[in-house]
């Protein structure tokens, strides 16, 4: 394509700034369409490419190159975008996961289970100071972050909760023992105020696990 058609630049400029080869222009268009958060118009492409480039031709090449591939070049109004091939839509549906923020009650319940496992529902309630709703526990089980542990050998033989491998994977932990303790949370700046010295009120019914000793002991070997 003749550069004069595109630009009004005088001949001197043309000789100084030669347009990149079309293969290079194709790379540029590919990268811009990939990274852009909205379809990009030919004018936009042109404005960002070196002087004398011809995005329309580069687009034509790129479109041909993607022909029959897993993604393709599609036109959206007067702009262009890269989209996955429609016949592969079934692969995307697997990823069909709606992400919701976990409620504060659920986060706290989960944290207590992680730090104090195995822990009974009554113990969770004692620590949080409010009752644990059935929905919260169900949700965490459904999410496969907690599961039932062994029954406690105390009157009533209450079930306990423990965290799962899925939980560890999700939170990037190698084991529940690697959860940082209060001191470390504070050191990392995640805990604002320094509480007055004093023992953590013991959980009722704790048999072998002595929670009073604090976090580091809890997960000690």
């Amino acid at each position, binding site marked *: 394509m003749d550069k004069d058609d595109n630009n009004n630049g005088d001949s001197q400029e043309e000789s100084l700034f030669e347009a990149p080869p079309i293969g290079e222009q194709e790379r540029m268009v590919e*990268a811009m369409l*990939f*990274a*852009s*958060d*909205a379809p990009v118009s030919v004018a936009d492409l042109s404005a960002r490419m070196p002087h004398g480039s011809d995005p329309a031709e580069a687009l034509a090449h790129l479109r041909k190159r993607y022909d029959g591939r897993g993604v393709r070049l599609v036109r959206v109004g007067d702009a262009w*975008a890269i*989209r*996955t091939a429609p016949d592969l839509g079934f692969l*995307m*549906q697997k*990823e*069909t*996961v*709606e*992400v*919701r*923020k*976990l409620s*504060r009650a*659920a*986060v*706290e319940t*989960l*944290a*207590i289970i*992680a*730090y104090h496992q195995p822990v009974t529902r009554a113990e969770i309630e004692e*620590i*949080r*100071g409010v009752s644990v709703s059935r929905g919260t526990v169900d*949700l965490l089980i459904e*999410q496969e972050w907690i599961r039932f542990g062994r029954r406690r050998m105390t009157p009533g033989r209450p079930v306990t909760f423990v965290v799962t491998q899925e939980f560890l994977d999700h*939170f*990037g*932990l190698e084991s529940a023992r690697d*959860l*940082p303790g*209060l001191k470390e*949370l*504070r050191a990392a700046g*995640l*805990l604002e*105020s320094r*509480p*007055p010295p*004093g*023992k*953590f*009120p013991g959980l009722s019914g704790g048999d072998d696990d002595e929670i009073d000793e604090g976090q580091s002991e809890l997960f000690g070997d």
Partner: protein
Amino acid sequence: MADNDIENDEFQTDALSVSDRMAAEALIIDVDGYEGPLDLLLTLSRTQKVDLRKISVLDLAVQYLGFIEKARHLRIELAADYLVMAAWLAFLKSRLLLPPEPGEEGPSGEELAAHLAFQLERLAGMRDAAARLMARDQKGRDFFVRGIPEDITRRRRVSYSATLIDLMQGYARIRTKDEFRPFVMDRNSIMTLDEALERLRGLIGYAGTWTDLTSYLPDGWQTDPSRRRSATAANFVATLELAKAGALEIRQSETFAPIQIRKVSDG
């Protein structure tokens, strides 16, 4: 700082010229710019212009001590760790210069010097690595991610997201709250200043004549030692407050004698 006189003497004998002083200050004034003594040592070591592995730790110790000395002349406050390092380097210098005393315990001067050289080389190595890391192509600056991640429509599963930080903060929140709990419960044997003040303000109107302060302790606070202690202290501080406000007078006939209070008469 204690021996000002000695410093003044030194000042007169080897008085620095103004330009010398300026130069010394230029080096030292920036002491806040160093991230601790090790950083300063690394900077000083650069002046030796040799491979860090061949550095003379003895020279470095002398340089560092000279630096500290200059700072003292210029009356620049140095953080404690700079002075600790100076003391240690003075010790190291003597170990390097003097033959070891027979039967002396601990590592040799050479071993200590070798470790310091190792630390400097390691710090320099990590600085260099950090610079190389930051010079790499970075996401969002040099290369980019997919601008339009495919909008994936949900089919059956709802996934709840929470990060480790959420979890830890949640736990910290509960733990912090609970650790306050015993403190709150303790308060039934503690009388606060506010409580005592409020009560005394009401009672002071009746204290027209000198009355023993201890007679103001409320019922139920006079027998149990810890409650009595707390109530006495609170009442005493409250009387001081009221005296300061001009509402009452305090007197005590001799040391450890009963403290008496009386309302300030309007007249």
